């Protein structure tokens, strides 16, 4: 594989960039693989990469209905963090943070990890206390967290509303300095390129139409491009999980919902951190291009349509202006929607299933993008070893029966309330 570096860039400039190799091939499906990963999103591609890299399993295909990276890895607000209260989420995500920190070098693809810090604003003492609970949990789990008072917040983000004319004044905030953002598309492409170079087949425009299961064991998958045999199959299709589960006669603790996000027109640098509003649900960062990247609530009803409605965005942007009044003068440039797997406790599932050889990775709710490397790594482990790693043991499917739920928000099964 061609190595990317400033030297190769200069070298290729002199041949008019005509000698760059293909980043990943576009093979036709073979008849059989050791592992088939369904879903060419970030998690699927990362899983394939770590299967090859960590477990030396390379007879792997990633099959994707559309084009790789077309799902939520390309439709998010690029936030990377591990600021969770529950140990399962915190330790899993912090493991992921390490992978993020080394990803550009590991993949030889600049995914632009930018540890600019995330600040969760608090608007009451009660909220400061709730954030302390989370922050202390993070610290005891070895994750960086700092509690900021109002003045400290003001120093970092003076453009937030510190005026008198404010409905919910800022009391302070919880900051994870090592959190940040990355270039979302690059993550999918970087994993694809490396996985491809290690022998993984990345097969696009290949839709799953059914599964072959005999005596409780998976045999293969039926696709729009023919049947593919596989010893093991990993399902990595957040947003379509319920649709594929139906083909397997499975019903899951997951609902499918739409989350919208939007960007403003680009402006000169004004905001360095990722900031979330505490008296509602709004988050914001500024991309390298200068666009303010903004998101918030779900549209609030089950949806598979990658299109949302304006009242939700109006509501989200109302909270945006409440936090950052300067947003008022900017213009909303682009909006998009992503289809979320909303699980019944707000945390994901990475587990085996009752079908031998079938593995499940779903239920990422809002938090799928940042989980990409850790999800791929642990899912690869779960598939390769046929048992979950300690890091994803808590993300079991049967936790809903045993009561070992991981509910960060305490909202229970009403997944559409945020």
């Amino acid at each position, binding site marked *: 594989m061609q190595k990317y570096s400033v030297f190769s860039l200069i070298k290729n400039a002199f041949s008019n960039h005509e000698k760059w190799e293909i980043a990943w091939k576009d093979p036709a499906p073979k008849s059989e693989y050791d592992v088939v990963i369904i879903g060419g999103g970030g998690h699927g591609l990362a899983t394939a990469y770590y299967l090859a890299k960590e477990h030396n399993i390379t007879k792997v295909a990633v099959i994707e209905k559309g084009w790789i990276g077309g799902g939520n890895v390309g439709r998010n607000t690029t936030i990377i963090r591990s600021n969770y209260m529950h140990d399962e989420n915190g330790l899993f995500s912090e493991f992921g943070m390490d992978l993020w920190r080394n990803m550009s070098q590991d993949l030889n693809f600049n995914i632009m990890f930018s540890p600019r810090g995330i600040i969760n604003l608090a608007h009451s003492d009660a909220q400061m206390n709730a954030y302390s609970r989370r922050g202390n949990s993070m610290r005891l789990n070895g994750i960086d967290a700092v509690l900021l008072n109002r003045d400290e917040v003001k120093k970092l983000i003076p453009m937030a509303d510190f005026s008198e004319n404010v409905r919910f004044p800022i009391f302070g905030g919880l900051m994870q300095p090592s959190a940040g953002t990355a270039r979302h598309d690059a993550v999918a492409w970087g994993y694809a390129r490396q996985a491809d170079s290690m022998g993984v087949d990345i097969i696009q425009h290949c839709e799953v139409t059914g599964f072959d299961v005999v005596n409780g064991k998976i045999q293969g998958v039926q696709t729009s491009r023919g049947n593919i045999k596989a010893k093991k199959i990993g399902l990595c299709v957040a947003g379509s999980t319920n649709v594929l589960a139906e083909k397997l006669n499975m019903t899951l603790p997951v609902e499918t919902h739409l989350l919208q996000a939007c960007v403003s027109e680009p402006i000169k640098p004004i905001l360095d951190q990722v900031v979330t509003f505490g008296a509602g649900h709004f988050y914001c960062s500024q991309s390298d291009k200068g666009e303010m990247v903004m998101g918030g609530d779900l549209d609030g009803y089950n949806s598979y349509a990658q299109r949302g409605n304006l009242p939700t965005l109006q509501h989200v942007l109302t909270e945006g202006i409440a936090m950052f009044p300067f947003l008022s003068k900017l213009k909303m440039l682009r909006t998009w929607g992503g289809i979320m797997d909303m699980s019944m406790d707000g945390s994901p599932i990475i587990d085996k299933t009752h079908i031998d050889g079938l593995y499940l990775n779903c239920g990422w709710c809002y938090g799928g993008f940042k989980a990409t490397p850790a999800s791929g790594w642990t899912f690869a482990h779960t598939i390769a070893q046929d048992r979950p790693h300690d890091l994803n043991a808590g993300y079991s499917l049967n936790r809903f029966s045993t009561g070992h739920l991981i509910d960060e928000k305490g909202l*229970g099964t009403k997944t559409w309330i945020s």
Partner: protein
Amino acid sequence: MSQNFRLEKGGLINRNKKISFKFNGKKYFGFEGDTIASALIANGVHLVGRSFKYHRPRGFFGAGVDEPYAILQMNRNNEVDPNVRATEQELFEGLEAKSVNCWPNVDFDIGAINNFLNKFFPAGFYYKTFMWPKSFWYKIYEPIIRKAAGFGAASINHDKERYEHKYEYCDLLITGSGPSGLASAYAAAQNGAKVILAEDKPRFGGSLLTSEATIGNQSGKEWVDTIISKLKSMKNVIVKNRSQVFGYYDHNMLVMSERVSDHLPETEKYTPKQRLWYIRAKEVVISSGSIERPLVFGNNDAPGVMLSSAAKEYLKVYGVLVGKKPIIFTNNDSGYETAIEFKKNGIDPVVLDTRISPDSEIINEAKNLNITIKNSYVVVAAKGYKKVKSADIAKISDDKKKLSRIENIECDCICVSGFWTPSIHLASQSGNKTKFNEQIDSFIPNKSKQKETTLGSANGIFTLGETLKTSFEKGNELSKQLTNNDNKISIPAVVEKKSSEHDKFWCVPLPKGKNYKRFLDFQNDVAVSDIELALREGYRSIEHVKRYTTLGMATDQGKTSNLNGLQLVSELENKVVPQVGHTTFRPPYTPVSIGAIVGREVGKHSKPTRKSPMHYWHEKNNAVFVDAGVWLRPRYYKQGSENLFEASKREAKNVRQNVGICDVTTLGKIDIKGPDSAEFLNRVYTNAWLKLPIGKARYGVMLREDGIVMDDGTTTRISENHYHMTTTTAQAANVLSHLEYYLQLVWPELNVNVVSSTEQWAGAAIAGPKSRSVMQKLFPSLDVSNDGLPFMGYIEGNLFGIKARIYRISFSGELAYEVNVESDNGNFMWEKIMEVGKEFNIQPYGTEALSTLRIEMGHVAGSELDGRTIPYDNSLEGLISKKKDFIGKRSLSKKAYVAEDRQKIVGVVPLDKKTSIPEGSYIVKDAKAKLPNPKLGHVSASCWSVEHDNPFSLAIIKDGKNMIGQKLFALSPLKNKSIPVEIVSSHYVDPKGERVRS
């Protein structure tokens, strides 16, 4: 500088009103009716900005919403407006604008060094480099890139402008006032339909303003004026200019932004800057027209290269020449219209037509005017850096592959026409799966998805006659269904020149040995070579191409670049365009101000504020308020120089020693009536409710179906079939919906009605050992003794002439009463209580003292009932009935919930009896254990116990019931605290509950 490029006469501007404005600090003049763009061009100014990546000089490319270049920073009425499009912003007296994305100035821009190095910056170059050393991306490279990117600079000052929202319903919403919009609006209006006609530009008429065709005996412009004045006079029609319908959402909801005041020097009083319209239309006519496509050739981004239709618009609408030595480079007849217009104004254009031997009425007219026409000719490359100075032109072979006879000719502008792209954005947003029309090599709408009909050039119809005919007919037909009127209109005769077919050629090959940049996306600097590179590297899906190269992702959202990009990809991939497919259009069609989207809900009004009827008493008495959801509650009443801690301690102490009064109006209240009410409560709450006597209250806990505690509160049986439920402030709305859910859907057989009565009652809690004395004075005729009104008893009374409900319930753990009166009487009640309580040293207490009192009593509240705990965790298992079923009961048998070492609430006291334990601390066995340090549980609430005069906290910890007496640590790494503690019972005061019963 005078307006050298302004024609002597002509145009639709008001030459009687001269307007002065400043651009990059220099003063210029224009006329009323100009845009910044037309006024600058009139003054010969073309260099207005720099491109995003290479910082190449940028001029004007269009004359409207499709403009990719001319983005300026504007000052209006001392406020900054970043990213204003010069082609849309109307001129007003005193306007100040400047270029963005350049430093130190637009003329000499350091960033342009990128252009000389552009060889090293192909599409996606940043993915391949900036990786070593590791920390450099975030610390060095990224800040440099960020600084170079972005357009305007936002001000962090608050936006002083006002934005409004309006909701409208109509029969027909018509989006665009060109020929198709006017005809369909007029026809529908004649049928009595309620019509909204929206025009983005200040002037109505669209293409008719620049067309030479005649309608009836009128010019296009005259016909527009006639129709518009007729429409404006009709009551059933709303006609709006400066109004862009930017989003087509579900169920025929469209959203329009009206720029009410942007064209004025300042916003008038009581007028918004912009108004956002939510419009629910029964039928939608999409008459948004089409946008001219660029032709692609070397350095086609140089200032002075622009759309031929824009050049024509500047001439005909603004009376401005975009150049005096124009080249018209076209693959269709539209270019000739521009050429003719130049010629009529005394300018000699050269027409380069890519076609071999085109022939039509328009071309003949051009020939008759002696316009120089070169067939099979192309522009190979524009020459000139900050402004076009000349062009390399060449003959192109019939197969369009070879160039010959390359020569350089002088020019000062190049007007390009690559045919027309229908504006299908709104149709696509509505869900219409558009189809590719090979004849015009563009996508046009397919079968309607919602109630939308696309007409005119937006639908690929480019002749005026046919457009008017179909639009009159459609307007009549759509409105006829809705109004049952059928007023046919005679369609006026149209005289227009016939066009010949366009040439599908659009991208000029590079001459041998030349490496010109040929741009597709002008703002984002995406060139043909970038697309080629993306495909070479395997980014083959159009979405990959778009994301890898950023094609079409600039602020013009690819209005002029998307289709050319698609054509290029399909050519290189040997596919046809529909196979490549286009990316789906999403709202907004054009960027919309966030202020307008948000409207009036800003500042203090961003969320509602709820206040109790006693709010102003609290204010007068130095209450410091706290937000409890959207309610404001007194947190403490400040006396002298007291701080929160001192005041709340004083207030709590006074409750324990004397008597206090607390405003509890915010508690949720639900009135429950019906013969099955007891049975219903019995199912909703975890404890037994069937035998609650009339005049008695009971504490209850309700669960979600997953076994988690949802809420708690007391419910009182007022009469046989009438109950009064209280909920926590936070859960009031959820509990009501929850009750309605079970009554309406799950157990409709129960004859019960519920209704919120939160707003109907004002409530005061009177708590403390002397509360009975206060009650006796308040209600001298009532027996409020322990026998007359025992704990959890209820009676009704007369409080100085007003009806009152009296509950003997307690949250503080003291002897206490709660008095409710109708809200209007709340303040009267409060003042009376203060008056009679004075001799007992009554003092108001706020939420902070309330917390202290409940914490040291071990009463759970929101911080324990946090949506993650079951009754056992909160020591509420005594309230779980074993005999009956209730909501959520079945979940309580889950393995984790019945585990021996299940978490449970305990009390925590610091060993030194001095150090307060911060809320949110964790209880651990070993304070110095290696991370991750195993946690036993967290501290949910802390207070200074006024009873014991030392800190006390509640914590929910693993195996809590067996931890009492253990010496552990409370850790708060955030506050750098490690506190040795002892675990005690959560009931720190009066564990037997004797006081409440005294």
